[in-house]
């Protein structure tokens, strides 16, 4: 089992590393950081721009491979991801933003997984009954919406709710109310209020996808021979499904989780932007808009590490659920 997990971890680590390095190379070839300076008034001299670009390590006149090498050396020897185009350290920018993104991601994913699994199992057991149809159509509808539409629709609904109640129950702009007075509890409550809508948005997208997948995994299990064996021993249908069915149907779910995680990351980035959160999603999008190679690579590295963690976690769950991979 340990061997299996180590093998999968190494696999993910290599994939993440190569993805990050390719992102650096790709960004260096596509983005043109110099344009930003030449657009200034007065137009800076070539030497000045070159010096700035060299300082950032993003001068297009230096071969890509050389820049990649110095970026790597910088990372390994000094633990630095270089500077942003605004001359701040990428790492410190990321440190300030990572918490925001992680809070949304962890809460959203956990809620999505739990709700999705429960709805999927329920739908499969009640196949083609009314409750299954409702869950199915609801998940299809959610899956037919881009995450930004879900976010904005939630905002419209929340505004309506706030208007009806006459108080600002749910806030949805930014991550907290700037300049809020009050104690620690007030701060926590404020942040929680801001967290509600984005989390719901992300959880909805995730839960819809997971419930479809869990439903079909559970349907495969429903007709399995061992369910019949369990019933022949004297279990009722419901108890056989719970004790023998769900446990097995969770196995494919654990691998699906790793594959779906990239979708969750994209959804989270979009939702951050819609709700004007200063998280890693915004960081990544801004980096591209501002042709900031170092910041972009940093953001990709952050995502790659998350994928690495999520992939390894799902493999641990997989190995724990399925005795067949424990060697």
């Amino acid at each position, binding site marked *: 089992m340990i061997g299996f997990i180590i093998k999968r971890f190494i696999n993910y680590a290599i994939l993440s590393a190569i993805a990050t390095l390719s992102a650096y190379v790709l960004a260096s070839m596509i983005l043109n950081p110099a344009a930003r300076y030449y657009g200034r008034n007065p137009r800076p001299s070539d030497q000045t721009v070159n010096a700035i670009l060299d300082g950032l390590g993003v001068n297009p006149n230096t071969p890509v491979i050389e820049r990649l090498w110095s970026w790597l050396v910088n990372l390994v020897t000094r633990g630095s991801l270089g500077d942003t185009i605004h001359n701040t350290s990428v790492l410190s920018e990321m440190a300030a933003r990572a918490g925001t993104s992680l809070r949304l991601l962890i809460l959203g994913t956990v809620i999505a997984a739990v709700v999705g699994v429960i709805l999927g199992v329920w739908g499969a057991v009640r196949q083609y009954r009314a409750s299954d149809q409702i869950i199915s159509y609801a998940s299809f509808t959610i899956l037919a919406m881009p995450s930004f539409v879900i976010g904005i629709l939630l905002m419209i609904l929340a505004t309506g709710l706030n208007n009806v109640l006459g108080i600002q129950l749910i806030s949805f702009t930014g991550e907290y109310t700037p300049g809020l007075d009050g104690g620690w509890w007030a701060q926590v409550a404020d942040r929680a209020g801001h967290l509600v809508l984005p989390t719901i948005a992300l959880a909805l997208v995730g839960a819809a996808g997971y419930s479809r997948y869990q439903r079909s995994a559970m349907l495969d299990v429903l007709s399995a021979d061992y369910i019949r064996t369990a019933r*022949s021993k004297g279990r009722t249908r419901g108890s056989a499904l719970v004790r023998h069915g769900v446990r097995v149907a969770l196995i494919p779910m654990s691998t699906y989780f790793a594959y779906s995680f990239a979708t969750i990351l994209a959804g989270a980035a979009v939702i951050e932007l819609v709700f004007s959160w200063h998280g890693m999603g915004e960081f990544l999008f801004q980096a591209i808009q501002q042709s900031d190679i170092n910041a972009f690579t940093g953001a990709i590295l952050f995502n790659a590490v998350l994928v690495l963690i999520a992939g390894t976690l799902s493999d641990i769950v997989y190995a724990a659920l399925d005795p067949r991979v424990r060697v």
Partner: protein
Amino acid sequence: MTDNNNHLLEVRDLTVTFPQPSGAVTAVRGVNYHVDKGEFLGIVGESGSGKSVSSLAVMGLLPSSAQITGDILFEGTSLLGRSDAELSRLRGEGISIIFQDPLSALTPVYTVGAQISEALLLHDPKLSRQAAAARAVELLRIVGIPHPERRAQAFPHEFSGGMRQRAMIAIAIANNPRLIIADEPTTALDVTIQAQILEVLQRAKDITGAAVVLITHDLGVVAGNADRIAVMYAGRIVETGTVDQVFHEPTMPYTIGLLRSMPNLATAGHTRLVPLEGRPPSLGNLAPGCPFAPRCPIAVDACRGTEPPLAALNDPQGKDARHSAACLRMDEIAGGQLQRAELFPRPERVAEAERADLTPETVLSVDGLVRHFPLMKGAVFKRQVGTVKAVDGVSLAIRSGQTLGLVGESGCGKTTTIMEILELAKPQAGRITVDGRDVAGMSAKERRALRRDIQVVFQDPMASLDPRLPIQDIIAEPLTVHGVPAGARRAKVAEVLDLVGLDPAMGARYPHEFSGGQRQRVGIARALVTDPKIIVLDEPVSALDVSIQAGVINLLEDLQERLGLSYLFVAHDLAVVRQIADTVAVMYLGRVVESGPAEAVFDDPRHPYTRALLSAVPVPDPSLERGRRRIILDGDLPSPTETTPGCNFRARCPLYKLLDADQQALCRDQDPALRPVAGTSAACHHAASIELVLN
């Protein structure tokens, strides 16, 4: 029927209907039977006869969409209409069931011990977990699993098929049920394992005193064990009686035909098989009248009008009323006006004039063929930890116009052997020669040309035909490889279709429009289209129903005589091999352990494995079966990764145990080579002492 209080289980006029979008299908149509305490009832039928559906109805395990009418009484109380919770209290405690496929019948994520304890704990809430676990180990010991303490901690995937089926039996007998239903319990298993499982089942019956209902398609399996038999056809019981009555005085033409069409180890090879033409009707839209009428040689007009009920036989001696059949003409059959042996005509052999002229020569020879697979281990860094010796020095030779039967249990390497031959590539070691030419040094072009001479027919006719192509394209495919022009291809396809007994006008149809037997004929036609010399037949009839098999075997025999073909016939069914083969090679763990003329190998086997294999095959004849002594082999086929010094059959050998210390030392130290003994060649040091093993 008499007083129902005496019956443990009574099924009255049971019908089961499955509503389908395309119309309801009645899978069971008015079935009546009963089982008494401690009795052994065999229910025999082909696929689609409704035998499994009726037993699942007894367990209350049919899908909720199934409409069930009639009545099922267990110990005098009705089971129909009871809730799932009520039935759950009975299932496992009063009635238990053993399913066919041990591979999927156990939950993969729980240990075997836990799954047995579960059955105990469900019906005895006072039992402690420790006590249940201890009892589970005890049950595993009863069903003959070695090291039960350790094995209880193992997961199902760590068990072999035979061991899983033993575990299933342990679950079934855990609560000492009064009735055990075994639904095709040995169908997925090898013949020596089947013999073991049947023995365990018999032991379980003796220990618990339970009645047993054994459901099977194999008449041989019930011949030796059952007290009474019920034969099912198209959702009904068409004949029932004691084992002797049904086997010796069958009265329903279907039973007669089924018994006559089965290749039988005792009679095979001497006479041609009698095919039972046609196939069972579809239950979706049954025509009125007797469902067997379209296949019945003695059907009269009345048979097509009304369906005869199951009625007690008018017994002239008035012995007993247990023998019933559902046939309008049963009195004529019982009375002797219609001779049982003449009901189904025995087909003639191919006339002398039509037989091919042959010059006896060796067309295919395999010499010391080796195929080893490296066994890798380690998750991060792979390293070779062993070798799977799938094929370990096999030698075979086939002469023109002859059939070599290659037999052995699953995992013995017979499939790997033929795949190696069919690749026509240089083997890891050894030599393959086709038509006297070594395939090792061939160019790709020569190899492609050689493929004309050696063709293959696979086991499952559905899987071996591309469902997306009409059969004329499927059959012509080998010709396209050799660049035959379209016109010539069409003519050749029509010719081979005719040869295998199909209408050439059917060429434009797709595989799904054919029945199983017809599909296998299409597969044979494809193999014939290049005018090959050799056809490799990989279990060509084992996927077919018994009543269909005989027709395909006869066809293969006819084609061989007419075209002078050579067959390499791979099968696990020894009776089929006995029927068709001229020479036989028996494989065990990648080696040929015995080979020789079919007569000699079957009538006087010299290797203890061959002897055990033959004795494990059930014969569909109760009197013969009761008098036979079975040699039950211990354990499973060992993994081919293990390297045992000396003879690799030693651990399971029934002869080895009877030898004295010196002789045993020889088995331990020296690997026996194939050497001539009596009429055959056997790889056994003590082949001469084989008579020690009673048979």
